[in-house]
């Protein structure tokens, strides 16, 4: 395996207890970190002068209902269903000055699907986090205004959860099929 990039090395060195796994595939760095340390990791990535990941490109989530959440291609298991890990929140950061990217993943348990909000670091995280709440039902602690963003008030459930019934319809007007 190729030696870790500067970013991954620095992360492991700085947060030995919270980086659960790292890998790098064709230049794409990924680190899995514990939820409770997410904000400090993100702040470090953003503010370290050698990294300067100042742009939050994307923030999304994955539902691993009934599967072991693993991180391809090395298949690093992020957590197991026994441990109650069901979701994973994925962050993509980009460093505009250094032209490099890193992906951070946070395992999220089903019993308490909550992650700290990064809106304090990137105001742009606001709508991303609302979308993840809307679609996956993952709450973001510290978000200024966590409401649904795409669906309407009164919609029940979170449609991108794998156990949302495929044929369930919730029309607001018209035939209630």
């Amino acid at each position, binding site marked *: 395996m190729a030696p870790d990039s500067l970013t991954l090395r620095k992360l492991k060195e700085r947060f030995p207890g919270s980086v659960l796994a790292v890998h790098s595939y064709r230049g794409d760095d990924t680190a899995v970190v514990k939820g409770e340390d997410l904000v400090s990791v993100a702040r470090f990535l953003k503010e370290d002068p050698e990294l300067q990941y100042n742009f939050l490109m994307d923030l999304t989530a994955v539902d691993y209902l009934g599967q072991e959440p693993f991180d391809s291609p090395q298949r690093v298991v992020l957590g197991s269903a026994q441990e109650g890990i069901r979701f994973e929140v994925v962050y993509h950061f980009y460093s505009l000055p250094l032209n490099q990217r890193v992906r951070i993943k946070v395992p999220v348990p089903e019993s308490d699907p909550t992650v700290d909000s990064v809106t304090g670091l990137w105001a742009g995280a606001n709508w991303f986090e609302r979308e993840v709440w809307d679609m996956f039902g993952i709450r973001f602690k510290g978000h200024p205004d966590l409401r649904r963003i*795409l*669906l*309407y008030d009164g919609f029940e459930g979170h*449609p991108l959860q794998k156990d*949302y019934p495929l044929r*369930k*319809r*919730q*029309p*607001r*007007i*018209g*035939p209630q*099929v």
Partner: protein
Amino acid sequence: MAVKATVTFGNQFFTSRLEKVVGWARKYSIFQYPFVTACCGMEYMAVAAGHYDMDRFGAGLPRFSPRQSDVLFVVGTISHKIAPVLKTTYDQMCEPKWVVAFGVCTCTGGFYDDYATVMGIDTIIPVHLYIPGCPPRPETVLDGLIKLQERIQNERQELFHGS
């Protein structure tokens, strides 16, 4: 007797001629309301713009107030979120009014058989013309428009409300 018969004939003659004239005027002065929500909008613009030029058929003037329009063009995917808005827009239009379902999304929901999409706008409002295609080619739209015009021409023309 003979005089009376002539008078009746004259009345019918007058009414049917008038209906034809009104129908002719209505079909060539369509003010459309483009309810554009998605990708079909690009194709709608292509039909409206110079190359295909909807204006040749008397439907060149989009109005952005439902009060001023005759034909509601529903162009693009209708989600459950926007469905009440579509219904309100339709309700605000003055009679006589017609609805065109532009694109397969509005006809049946298209391939969006999911939690978010209305399975055809005819579940919410009446539809007079379905134009299939994803998106429909401009020729299809114009063909549809001509069919709608035929329909408008041949309809019974309500000159006064309840007449």
